[in-house]
């Protein structure tokens, strides 16, 4: 019994599922890393993902191509990013309230439009994103099964992780972005308005969360939109951002961890009620948050002990 369960857990299928579950969270976490660096607490990612999922399907439905859907999502991402920044940066509103309201607004807007356009039963089977076949990869026994023939955005995410990492740590813009969150007044003295970097971060976050949603609806579910399909992924992405201290590469690893537990949950459904296994990734997220805080407190205590010794 245990042997079969373990075999099911550590199969290629699980790791493939891990990759699938992790990707939308990872894309959103990349976006969240931008706003986090700019010093904005972004609770609204869930709503941004949901809007991305809806507008992706809408574009695909209206123009009959997934590429048009992604185009509409990118447009929407910029608009949502601008909207978020307008309230949080320009009007200096409470980030928590705006984020929560954005989530509810997205839920209302997408459900309303979905029912108005597609009717109560929703929509299915719109043109979806292609899967990518890499010739030759199949010959590698385990990795081939895990890595090959996945939806396009899974590979795009790898590229984006690299690009965002380079952007944050290796370009002057990334440097200014981090400064706008950590030491905004210093950045202003250097002649760059921190507000501008916050606007940029917000737009990038809108774009990346939009792509996360597009992957969910156009990639993972093959052109299907269901109400509230983001399903708290935005919050899990937020936890990944905190966990990784907004480092894009680490955020991806955190998302993979979430994906792994999600995949295990799906595997265990044959043995335990799926309602119970569904809770695993959320419990892991709480454990992750506790771990992050305990770790940083321990570090602080350690630093506090060392400091006087250094001075003395």
């Amino acid at each position: 019994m245990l042997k079969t369960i373990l075999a099911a857990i550590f199969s290629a299928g699980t790791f493939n599922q891990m990759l699938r579950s992790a990707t939308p969270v990872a894309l959103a976490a990349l976006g969240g890393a931008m706003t986090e660096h700019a010093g904005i607490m972004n609770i609204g990612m869930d709503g941004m993902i949901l809007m991305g999922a809806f507008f992706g399907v809408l574009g695909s439905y209206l123009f009959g191509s997934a590429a048009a859907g992604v185009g509409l999502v990118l447009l929407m991402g910029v608009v949502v990013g601008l909207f978020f920044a307008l309230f949080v940066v320009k009007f200096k509103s409470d980030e928590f309230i705006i984020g929560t309201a954005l989530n509810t607004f997205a839920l209302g807007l997408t459900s309303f439009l979905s029912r108005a356009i597609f009717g109560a039963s929703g929509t299915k089977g719109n043109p979806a994103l292609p899967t990518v076949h890499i010739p030759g990869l199949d010959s590698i026994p385990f990795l081939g099964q895990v890595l090959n023939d996945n939806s396009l955005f899974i590979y795009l995410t790898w590229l984006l992780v690299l690009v965002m990492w380079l952007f944050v740590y290796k370009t002057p813009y990334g440097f200014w972005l981090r400064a706008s969150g950590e030491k905004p007044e210093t950045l202003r003295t250097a002649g760059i308005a921190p507000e501008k970097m916050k606007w940029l971060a917000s737009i990038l976050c809108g774009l990346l969360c939009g792509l996360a949603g597009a992957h969910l609806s156009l990639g993972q579910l093959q052109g299907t939109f269901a109400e509230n399909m983001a399903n708290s992924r935005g919050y899990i992405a937020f936890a990944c951002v905190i966990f990784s201290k907004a480092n894009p590469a680490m955020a991806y690893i955190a998302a993979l961890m979430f994906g792994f537990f999600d995949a295990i949950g799906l595997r265990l459904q044959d043995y335990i009620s799926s309602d119970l296994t569904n809770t695993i990734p959320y419990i892991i997220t709480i454990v992750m948050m506790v771990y992050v805080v305990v770790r940083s407190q321990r570090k602080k205590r350690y630093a506090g002990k060392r400091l006087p010794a250094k001075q003395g």
Partner: protein
Amino acid sequence: MKKRFNWGYLVSLLISVLLAFAIGAVILVIAGFNPLEAYAAMVDGAFSNARHIGDFLEYAMVLCLTGLACVLGSRVGIFNVGGEGQLLLGAVVSCQVGVWLAGYSAWIAIPAAALAAMAVGGFYALIPGWLKVKVKVNEVITTIMLNTIAASICQYLAKGPWKNANKNMVAATEKLDPRFWFKTLIPGSGLSTAIVAAIVITFLTWYVMQKTSVGYEMKLTGQNPRFAFFSGIKTDKIVIVCMVISGAMCGLVGMFRVYGVEHLYRSSISNQYYFEGLTVAMIAHYDPVTVIFLSFFFAVLKIGAQGMELSAGVPNQIYLIIQTVIIFFMAAESGIFASLRAGSQRRKARADIRRKEGEGHA
């Protein structure tokens, strides 16, 4: 000391509401509906007959209690976003307690169920409260995660161990003994005697928060925890206790929904109701009295929107859109005024310069 009535708040609320309806109308037009017809159907849906009035009073009760539960947390500086989970768990547990005690008198079963609902809701709020105070984990994320976990657990209980005997009802518990049902006040509607209990709870919450020294200590803890701590207030204890009471209130709302309306547990017991209460609290700037008044307004909107869906075929989610647009405006209120003022000052300064230049030339 009598507090001056805040006219500025009322004016900005009215402007926000009007703007929100205007934006809602634009969205309705884009989606191909006639906004005037839709809004007329909305008013009609809330007031056309006694049943709808009963429904909206029941929903106002839910909004008021959940909104106050949120205020209770935010007053001491902790945001209870997990009310939805506390509500669902309170509902399922109180329902099952009623099922177990089916043979006993209602005088035993109902208090037992209420206690169970409060205990479960309170305990479920204790987890994030304790983590926040003792470990300093951000409560927003933990409570949201706990919501999803609670929804799954309730679904599991309703499908598995506590499922009813009827094969056709997949995810629901056993129906309660009719002796335990709260008496319905307006036939056909959801309004039951639970509203009396709700009024008492509302009054108590308001009284404790606004009129007692405990309420003052709560306010101090929320506004300046360090100062409160050094003036000898046990801030940790106050935060945890407020969070637990907030959770217990949400659990009770779940029980009211079961015993007053549905008479069994199924997931339709709450459809993100806590989040709507939370938004009411946000729009009210976490002021308990304003929460009470606003919950009536938003209950009318919600029940009206449901009536509108039936009569005019407009999806009722337009209600969520209008409600959140109001929050956006209310949250940005000071920022919008500040940037308007800055703009007019800039214009004035520019005009001054121009005038001075003109004088210089003359």
